[in-house]
């Protein structure tokens, strides 16, 4: 009889133990359910400040981009510290797939039309099959439709063309910090002076630091390997703020460049931060 009591007690204990482990039971039932957990929140917008980010529009989404770069602050009261003048770009980017996008834009700088494509090769992923960074390439072809100067030279259509090719490597280090490297190659068919090379190599770096769920501080800099361009040109540096409000991302920043496509802002930035020739600019992006 004693044995029976012990047995009954044992069964009772194991039974009550069971019901307490409902949660463990559920967790074991859940195992084996894992999809790749892609990091999709490394950037708020497809643009960092001037350049591209590794964020692409989702498949089938359109992103409308409206960008302005005003005149330099040090132009003074007569031009309202630069706000009287502006260069602009209107653009769209479309997500062909979640890893491929194409874009088209028109800048007032050199009356330029740009056509570009972005392709992600690797996506940063959390979890079992972890991937440490997002890797993409971006290429653009540009046509300037500006009138040629009346200087008696012969200009060909090919002289209107310029190109850029970029590697985009980003990593979201924490829920706040994302950094991106963008080694860039620019080719211009026509350059202004003999000191300017047709082929330009630069290394870009940038990133964002979130200060809240919807606001982030951003920075972007491109270092041109010396000896490729005339002395009058400067490396582009921009500092800004991203504000996301539902479907819109507002990017407000100060920068020393007035062009808004790679083949121009990388080799053709003339204003200098040290001389105070910085300007205010903004990008508005809207996803449809």
């Amino acid at each position, binding site marked *: 009889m004693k*044995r*029976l009591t012990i047995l009954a007690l044992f*069964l009772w204990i194991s039974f009550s133990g069971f019901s307490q482990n*409902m949660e463990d039971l559920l967790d074991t*039932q859940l195992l084996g359910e894992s999809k790749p957990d892609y990091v999709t929140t490394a950037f708020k917008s497809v643009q960092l400040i001037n350049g591209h980010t590794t964020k692409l529009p*989702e498949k089938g989404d359109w992103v409308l981009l409206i960008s302005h770069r005003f005149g330099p602050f040090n132009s003074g009261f007569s031009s309202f510290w630069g706000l009287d003048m502006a260069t602009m770009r209107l653009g769209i980017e479309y997500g062909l797939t979640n890893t491929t996008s194409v874009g088209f834009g028109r800048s007032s700088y050199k009356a330029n039309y740009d056509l570009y494509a972005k392709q992600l090769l690797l996506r940063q992923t959390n979890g079992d099959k972890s991937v440490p960074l997002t890797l993409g390439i971006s290429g653009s072809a540009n046509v300037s439709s500006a009138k040629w100067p009346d200087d008696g030279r012969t200009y060909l259509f090919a002289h209107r063309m310029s190109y850029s090719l970029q590697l985009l490597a980003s990593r979201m280090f924490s*829920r706040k910090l994302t950094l991106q490297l963008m080694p860039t190659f620019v080719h211009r068919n026509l350059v202004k002076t003999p000191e300017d090379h047709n082929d330009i190599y630069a290394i870009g770096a940038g990133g964002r630091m979130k200060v809240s769920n*919807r606001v982030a501080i951003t920075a972007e800099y491109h270092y041109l390997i010396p000896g490729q361009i005339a002395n009058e040109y400067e490396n582009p540096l921009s500092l800004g703020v991203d504000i996301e*409000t539902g479907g819109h991302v507002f990017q407000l920043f100060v920068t020393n460049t007035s062009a808004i496509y790679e083949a121009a802002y990388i080799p053709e930035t003339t204003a200098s931060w040290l001389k105070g020739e910085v300007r205010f600019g903004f990008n508005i992006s809207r996803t449809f």
Partner: protein
Amino acid sequence: MRKIFFSIILLIGISVAGFGQKYFTRSGYVRFFSSTPIENIEAINNQGSCIVDLATGEVVSKLLMKSFVFEKTLMQEHFNENYVESDLYPQAVLKGKVLDVGSFDLSKKGSQAISLNADITIHGVTKNMDIKGTGENVEGKLQANATFILKPADFNIVIPKIVANNIAKEIEVTVKFTLEPLKQ
């Protein structure tokens, strides 16, 4: 003596098997719906997991926030990044008890009312709630349905002023779970 011993084991065995009848799913349907004059927002999660013990009335349910699918991917991204912060709080968890488990009989035909008292944890905040639903035997499976209201504010989910008119203060949650007998 042996006979008694054997029959008692058998009896306990049966009662445990009968008592410990557990039902589970990991493909439960959970939908939330926010309705305002400006826009309706709907998200569906088909990967709700749930286990119910009909002996004790215990219910545990878990849900990955990232598995909610929205009509617009951007909404889904904002939901995860800005509202429920699913990188910090990946799961929604419900732990509770069916209060009327004593009168609930799965061998009966038709739908029977169920009331559940549960702790719901979303966004790191736990709230105790009473939920009314139904349970029904559908071809040997336990079909459990419920609709209830959750308030984002209760779970410390902040909705900025700029979109305050687009997101309802009360979110309707619909749950449809088809729970299968759990073989152990």
